């Protein structure tokens, strides 16, 4: 028991922090809640480091301490901290501010459960926990748009979640255990693995915003505060992708999942970028592009069984994605939500402009930025596992991606029309910090990619 708990220190720290934050919120001390959250996240991150190379499970296999969950903590916890800062910059002083911080930490906890889950029940709990918190976060402004977004998010989440739970019961029926590691017994059996697999694809696909489970994403991001959208687009999505990896690597290949996932991946990438091409709302544009990014992550999922690079690839691209997507959203918080706000942005704020270009190019996958390294891993993994066509589609989509991101970059350097100088206020320092950190990571980790997992 002590051993098991010692491996759970980061999670315990985070949950304690969350409860303290709730207490702080009761005292209406939002700032204190923020500080507690940040400290908790930092401490949890640091305490993750010693167990990075562990490969074990706790509580009889229901929770895994392995490469994926370790790195997921290293990625998600700092990412959450950055998101907290962004949220702080956006909603300072609003009612129930502290609840938001607490909920964010709780959702991250759910995300960690998803990333480390070794059991169907943990998976279910993770999905529901992240979902519940997210609905509330989206609804936080409680205006028309936010409630509409939250409602759609909720309906989608509730339906897909319940269908997933229903489908997962069949797995239990098939093997008599709720552990993923028992799924091997399904090898060669018809139907039962398929039902559960469909259930997982539905539940996690919804979380990761894969096509055709993505419909909620643009609306939810659009209705929510930008910082919340940034948080959701990064943390819950990554969690779902790590969960995919945790589940599917134990699922026998005989169920034919790689090809189906590959098709989903291809459709997702293409659909995301195509739709992004016609957006005029910057948040929606990034929302669609992040749908497409999920498609790229799926390259790694597809290759799980056949390539040793798949998991590192997911981790690397995940880390990159946290940095670049959070960064891009942070810049959007400064520039404004409409594509028109970007006109001349690069000339008005040269540094922000350059940074935004870095984020967008990294999202496109231009070397030597961080996003490129991740994509190389994943393309390599996909090719190694025989999905050359998928890699080719991914590569072709990179061109589409370029078109999408150039839609932002090009106006940034066009002369701006009638900009009201007085409306330009200096950005919140927390935001600047976030942008600085994410930019450094996006730029620097491309070179230092060697520190990433093998």
């Amino acid at each position: 028991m002590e051993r098991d708990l010692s491996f759970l220190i980061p999670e315990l720290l985070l949950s304690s922090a969350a409860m303290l934050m709730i207490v702080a919120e009761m005292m209406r001390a939002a700032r204190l809640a923020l500080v507690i959250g940040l400290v908790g996240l930092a401490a949890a991150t640091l305490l993750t480091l010693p167990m990075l190379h562990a490969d074990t499970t706790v509580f009889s296999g229901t929770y895994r301490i392995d490469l994926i969950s370790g790195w997921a903590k290293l990625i998600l916890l700092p990412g959450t901290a950055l998101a907290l800062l962004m949220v702080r910059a956006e909603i300072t002083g609003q009612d129930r501010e502290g609840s938001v911080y607490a909920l964010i930490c709780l959702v991250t906890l759910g995300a960690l459960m998803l990333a480390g889950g070794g059991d169907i029940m943990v998976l279910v709990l993770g999905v529901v926990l992240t979902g519940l918190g997210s609905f509330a976060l989206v609804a936080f402004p409680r205006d028309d748009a936010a409630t509409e977004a939250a409602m759609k998010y909720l309906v989608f989440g509730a339906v897909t979640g319940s269908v997933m739970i229903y489908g997962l019961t069949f797995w239990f029926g098939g093997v008599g255990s709720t552990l993923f590691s028992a799924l091997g017994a399904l090898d060669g059996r018809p139907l039962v693995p398929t039902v559960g697999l469909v259930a997982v694809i539905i539940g996690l696909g919804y979380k990761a915003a894969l096509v055709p489970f993505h419909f909620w994403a643009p609306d939810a991001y659009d209705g929510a505060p930008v910082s919340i959208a940034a948080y959701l687009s990064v943390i819950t999505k990554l969690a779902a992708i790590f969960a995919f990896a945790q589940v599917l690597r134990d699922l026998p290949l005989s169920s034919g999942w790689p090809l189906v996932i590959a098709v989903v991946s291809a459709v997702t990438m293409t659909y995301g970028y195509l739709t992004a091409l016609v957006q005029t709302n910057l948040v929606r544009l990034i929302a669609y592009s992040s749908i497409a990014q999920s498609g790229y992550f799926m390259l790694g999922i597809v290759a799980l069984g056949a390539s040793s690079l798949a998991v590192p690839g997911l981790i690397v691209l995940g880390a990159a994605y946290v940095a670049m997507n959070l960064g891009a959203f942070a810049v959007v918080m400064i520039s404004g939500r409409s594509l028109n706000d970007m006109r001349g942005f690069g000339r008005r704020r040269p540094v922000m402009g350059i940074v935004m270009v870095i984020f967008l190019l990294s999202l496109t996958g231009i070397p030597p930025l961080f996003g490129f390294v991740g994509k190389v891993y994943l393309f390599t993994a996909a090719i190694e596992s025989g999905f050359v066509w998928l890699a080719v589609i991914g590569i072709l989509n990179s061109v589409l991606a370029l078109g999408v991101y150039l839609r932002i970059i090009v106006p940034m350097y066009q002369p701006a029309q009638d900009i009201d100088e007085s409306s330009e206020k200096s950005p919140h320092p927390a935001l600047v910090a976030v942008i600085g950190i994410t930019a450094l990571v996006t730029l620097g980790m491309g070179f230092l990619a060697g520190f990433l997992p093998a």
Partner: protein
Amino acid sequence: MPLLTLATFLPILGGLALIVLPNRSARVAHGMSIAVTGVVFMLTLVIWSRGTIAGGFAQIEELAWIPAIGAAYRLGLDGLSLPLVLLTSLLFFLSAIYSARISDRAPSYVVLMLMLETAALGTFMALDGLLFYVFFEVSLVGMYFMIAGWGYEDRQRAALMFFIYTLLGSLPLLLAIIGLYLSSGTFDMRVWIDMPPLTGIAAMLALIAMLFTFAVKIPAFPVHTWLPAAHVQAPTAGSVILAGVMLKFGTYGLVRFALQMTPEAFAQAGQVILAVGVVSALYGAFAALAQSDLKKMIAYTSINHMGYVVMGVAVAALTVDLRIRTIALDGATLQMVSHGLVTGALFFLLGMLQDRAHSRDMSEFGGLLGRVPWLGWSFILMAFASLGLPGLAHFPAEFQVFLATLNTAPWAIIAILAIVVTAGLYLRAIAAVFLGSENEKWLEMRDLDRREKLVIVPLLILTVLVGVAPSWLINMIHTTMESLSF
């Protein structure tokens, strides 16, 4: 001392320093630019003096980068890359001098140029597949912003075209690199070269992917259409770098990757590649003949000249005679350098002309030779160099390429028609711009000033030097090519 690393990253460090610098006036920026590129040029001279070795790479610098996938930071040189490195550092140095007049957002311009230099040097020196690709792509981004930011009238479109085209072009290379990696377990290009890891159909697929990439970059018919557009709109220094340095990525890659890493497939596809080279050479020449825009004309001649390089490489793969192969590769490599010198100079001269006249259309000029003798005579000399006049830079290279071609695939010698056509088009351009009766419009035109002469004269001297006594350059190339194993 890790001179290669130093030379590669000094420019970008200079650029970063410039960003940090409190005083970022145009003067400071250009001073920085000239100083940094000058130092890099000196460094490459020192690197040159250290020399290469036969049968492999010299001056290797290696550092772990992503050990997980066998990618490392590896730099090194051989007789193929060293001349190109020298060319790169020289052209960037001269471009920096030339650009010293640009005042519009000078610091950004300088940073971009310096970034491009890092990318270009890195591309030529990289010995790691992934690293190569990284530099290769960075150059693309830099050039996009260069064209989009400082180009002429229709720059946004040209830049977009350039970017999409070459990005679409470069991604297949990534596939090929990944393929090579998966079959060898490392990104070390030396391993790929020593023991080509791919065979059979896989090698052919990888070759096709690489050929696509490099054909876009070279550019070869029929994926060349971005080049004239990009050149016409690019600022002068951009054109110089684009033509002088970046087109070489394509041909360099053709030798380094396609030829050396998939030699068997390359030999199988040799005739096709040769045909592409021949068609490019002829097509470029004829298309250039039909232009009245001077910059576009030179751009098309680049297609012609690069076509010769492709021919040389293809012939090297086709022939069984070791001697002919060496001749072909010598010629192809020398052609890359010559093209950099000559076309670089031509674009500089056109830029100077355009600075004065704000026009590139040859029909708008006439009789300028008397008005601007320096400009005119430099142009004439360079034009003749470009059309392959003996005693000037292109002759030895083209001679070798043709010699090897005729003795390997005699049909391909029809490409020699192109030398007549280029002669015709250059003479026509010279006649239209510099000869004939003087156009009243340009009576006030100034001749080259000291800075401009400083840019042009080294190129003139080198052009003659390479033409008259190429041995200082070609012996270095020869040593490597002779011992090239594939």
